[in-house]
């Protein structure tokens, strides 16, 4: 126990934050995507410490299994492996850094000020995956269906947006100053 925090929590928190910092600082985009995966895994471990097993495992499945792979594919499709960014940061990077530091200061101040220090945790909720499935099929069935429609529409839309366009230009369309 250090500062009243367990070693496991401290290790997971350090892993999560270090992955995020590495994603912010590394030059190579593929390395950024891999450290992002470390952050996702750390967040899944934090969910498991909060007794949210289903959320933790769906975090692993959705983020590490799908989103990280998608990010890596997008990086490889747009740049090619091993090509580092020539100049990674925008010209107003200092302003952005100040803004995000101010946001963190505000959030941290609010958290420290507003909570009683010894907020006693209640009993670990007895929630099984079975009860989550039953709730999804009974009282949350409308949001579930809406999310299903949203995912279908978003994936079809993503494929249509990323699909190569037909090469033939429209008759009469001016070949405006592109190339």
């Amino acid at each position, binding site marked *: 126990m250090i500062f009243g925090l*367990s070693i496991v929590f401290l290790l997971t928190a350090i892993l999560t934050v270090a992955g995020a910092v590495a994603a912010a600082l590394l030059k190579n985009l593929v390395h950024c995507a891999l450290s992002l995966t470390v952050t996702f895994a750390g*967040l899944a471990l934090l969910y498991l410490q909060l007794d*949210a097993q289903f959320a933790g495992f769906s975090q692993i499945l959705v983020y590490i299994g799908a989103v990280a792979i998608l990010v890596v594919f997008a990086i490889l499709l747009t740049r090619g492996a091993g090509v580092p960014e020539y100049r990674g940061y*925008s010209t107003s990077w200092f302003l952005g850094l100040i803004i995000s530091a101010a946001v963190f200061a505000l959030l941290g101040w609010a958290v420290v000020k507003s909570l009683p220090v010894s907020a006693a945790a209640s009993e670990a909720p007895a*929630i099984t995956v079975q009860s989550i499935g039953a*709730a999804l099929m009974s009282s949350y069935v409308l949001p579930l269906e809406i999310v299903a429609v949203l995912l279908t529409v978003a994936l079809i839309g*993503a*494929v249509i947006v990323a699909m190569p366009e037909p090469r033939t230009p429209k008759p009469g369309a001016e070949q405006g100053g592109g190339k």
Partner: protein
Amino acid sequence: MTPLAAFLIVAALVFAIGLAISLTRRNAILVLIGIELMLNAANLNLIAFWRFGPHTSGHGDGLTGMMFAIFSIAVAAAEAAVGLGLVIAYHRHSKTTDLDAMTRVKG
């Protein structure tokens, strides 16, 4: 048990780092990564408040916060797919993902 404030501080740190990534980096994919980090920080907040909140009072079955986080994860996945599809489509047109060079979106 780890106090609630520790989880909230970690979530605030991840949120601030995500904001810094999307404000300072020049690659469009990295900006999307920053947005994903901010969404994840919000999810961590939701799960932490669900764990520390009352479970049996109210009309719910104690699952509301967890369900909120799970649906939020699903919506974030859809957002990532569409965003990366847009970046790939832009790269096909103008061969760049540099945000300073992405000045026009008209074909």
